[in-house]
């Protein structure tokens, strides 16, 4: 032990201070003094512990939370469930309310009603007119490229193809449905690259006043895992016996596929990172324990039992693991939140449920890295160690 830094106290002062200090057992005092006297090495070992625990916490948090984050990202693909009246019939009036009650409020499903009719223009061209709720449709279908959403009465959203044929100059036009004529004003253009381009979208209540046709389709974006979505489908089917409730397979299967691959990659990455940081801790802590073989030898030379020495080093390692785990856990949560904000623009919810795993893992790794060098040292005579061999 180095005596280069001489103590700034006279022996009397030290004795006084020790007499005044609360009585602690020899065991605790040895633990504390060991940490204080070799604070640099102890700090290095603790730092490794903290970093490993932080990285492990961040990876576990991400692994759990990223799936939820990606799922909500996948909801931008639109509805994953459709409710359709059987044989093209209209749905009951309370269908939308029922759909929302069955899938919400916790899961926060977004349901958009659609009703369809074929109307004729003044020159006899047939065109599909759709009644919907614009506010909901806008939330559900992020990919719709809309130049301007309708606000005023009799304003419509024109699919690009429909606009070119029905109202090439974007002038108001007339449509006839079963003898009833309405005059409509194009508010904006809708472009999707799919069937929507050849349709005209009108507000649901105005549509119903004109045609008398109630919604026949409700598109629903149900949040959650595949089993959760399936449960919702089942619930909806029971609530609405007059309707067909179907999953949109294109969306469901695509999502499952991409999500599974991402999850597997993240899992492999997390495992590698956690393994590496555990090894880092193992190397550092083993060094720190091995380095104290003289303490070990002195304790044994003074007559400490095998059990006491083992217990001492184990307690020291466990304490270091515990402190490192607690500090590392909070830093790790911070890293996970930061990654969530940077990558998903939404904070990752801290998962305190991973704490027991991080804690147990840290203590276990710390114990292993204490026990390995001790078993090696036990075979050597204390005298040899004290002689510096």
């Amino acid at each position, binding site marked *: *032990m180095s005596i280069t830094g001489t103590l700034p106290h006279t022996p009397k002062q030290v004795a006084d201070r020790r007499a005044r200090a609360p009585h602690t057992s020899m065991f605790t005092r040895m633990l504390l003094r060991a940490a204080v006297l070799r604070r640099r090495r102890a700090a290095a070992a603790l730092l490794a512990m903290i970093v490993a625990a932080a990285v492990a916490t961040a990876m576990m948090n991400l692994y759990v939370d990223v799936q939820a984050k990606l799922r909500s990202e996948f909801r931008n693909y639109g509805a994953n469930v459709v409710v359709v009246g059987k044989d093209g019939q209209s749905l009951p009036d309370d269908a939308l309310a029922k759909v929302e009650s069955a899938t919400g409020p916790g899961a926060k499903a977004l349901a958009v009603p659609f009703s369809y009719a074929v109307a004729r223009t003044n020159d006899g061209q047939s065109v*599909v007119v759709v009644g919907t709720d614009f506010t909901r449709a806008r939330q559900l279908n992020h990919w719709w490229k809309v130049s301007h959403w309708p606000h005023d009465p009799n304003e419509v959203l024109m699919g690009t193809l429909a606009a070119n044929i029905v109202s090439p100059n974007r002038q108001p036009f007339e449509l006839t449905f079963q003898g009833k004529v309405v005059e409509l004003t194009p508010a904006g253009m809708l472009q999707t690259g799919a069937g929507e381009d050849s349709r005209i979208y009108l507000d649901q209540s105005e549509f119903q006043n004109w045609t008398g046709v109630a919604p026949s389709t409700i598109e629903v974006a149900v949040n959650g895992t595949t089993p959760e979505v399936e449960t919702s489908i089942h619930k909806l089917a029971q609530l609405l016996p007059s309707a067909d409730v179907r999953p949109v*397979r294109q969306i469901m*299967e695509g999502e499952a596929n*991409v999500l599974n691959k991402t999850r597997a*990659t993240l899992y492999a*990455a997390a495992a590698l990172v956690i393994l*590496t940081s555990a090894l880092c801790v193992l190397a550092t802590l083993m060094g720190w324990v091995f*380095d104290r073989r003289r303490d070990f030898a002195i304790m044994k030379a003074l007559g400490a039992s095998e059990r006491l020495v083992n217990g001492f080093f184990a307690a020291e390692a466990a304490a270091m693991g515990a402190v490192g785990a607690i500090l590392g856990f909070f830093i790790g949560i911070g890293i996970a939140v930061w990654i969530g904000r940077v990558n998903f623009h939404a904070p990752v919810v801290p998962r305190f449920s991973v704490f027991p795993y991080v804690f147990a893992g840290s203590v276990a790794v710390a114990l292993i890295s204490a026990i390995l060098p001790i078993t090696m040292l036990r075979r050597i005579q204390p005298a040899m160690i004290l*002689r510096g061999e």
Partner: protein
Amino acid sequence: MFPRIVYESFRHQARRKLLAGIAIALGVAVATAMIAVATDIGDKINRELRSYGANLVVTPQEDTLDVEIGGVNLKPPSDGAFLNEADLPKIRGTFWHNNIVGFSPMLPVTVKLGSGSSAKDVTLVGTYFNKPLHFGKQDFTTGVRITHPWWKVSCGDGRLEDSPAACGWPNDDSQNILVGERLATKLAKKPGDTLDVAGRQLTIFGILSTGAAEDDEIVAPLALAQHILGKPGAVRRVYLSALTKPQDAFATQDPNTMTPEVRDRWYCSPYVQSIAFQLQEVIPHSHAEQIRQVAQNEGAVLSRIKGLMLLVTLAALFASALAVSAAMATAIFERRVEVGLMKALGAGSLGVSAIFFAEALLLALVGGIAGFSAGALLARQIGRSIFNSQISIEPVLFPVILAIAIFVTFAGSAAAIRRAVKFDPVFALRGEG
């Protein structure tokens, strides 16, 4: 003397050197594997995103309105313009043909089921299932089995299990059809039954389940649909599944307003817009458009996953750098006595440091090479088990990884070496501290 000290150090402390070397190799392996996975993940996920189906659609330029509700087409069948089937193989001649995973032509025809007063209108869609085509010297197959991976064909109640050849996906040049599952239930038909379609007796080869409008329709080989319509070679629209680059501000610019140089750069980027532009060039009188539901979202999903893997890779690099420096620090700290002896014999700080750095360099080189190979294997294993395809390692990565390994080893050793050199040889030799 210098090489001998280094050599003897490795010879006599083989176990310690091995431990440090293993730590470096592990750190480098993890770093290599993560970098390889992170650089390749975009491409891999892009391919997985193709399970959402086509992201481009080609229609005739003079397209007419679709009057279709719930899979029932209310428009006269021969109305409107068509694309020419003979032009389709030219899709393989576009600049980005390697990015085009597959394409499927579609020709919807309204047909009468049955005859007399019980006849009813049903939509029959002609398409390719898995059609062999060739363009120039290339042979390839394409069809809905590639572009619409969620379409499932079943054999109904499994009645035909003993003769599997008579059930499944029909051949593209056969007269066999698939019937949508809801339509099949309505008609009470099973695979193997015949169906009176527009006055022809066609054999049902399988029940199609798609979760969309096709469940109420009949799907047939394209040639059969053209024959029923009486327009050989006609195609209503073509769905294309292409690997694209996430869209940015540059992608949405109008190519006609660009300078030739900028236009070349735009043309040679696999944006969905530039692929659409090239399709319009090869298919006469056509209009190519992105399917926004698929095309707009894949960029967002892709960049999220790429960003995530990048951050995770940073974490992995950080953890492995730490592991390497921890191992080096421990290894050097254990050799204070040696340092003390060397200094007592008159070695300068510089000389002692040089020995340690030389050893670190050797360790980093050996560990780096071993770790790089192990990391390459690891990345390959990850690619094979998760994505069923190779993750290739760029050879460029090797010197980069080696340089990083040497840098991290040096950085990790520096502090420990400085401390070891500064340590008073008297205390070190007495075995204190």
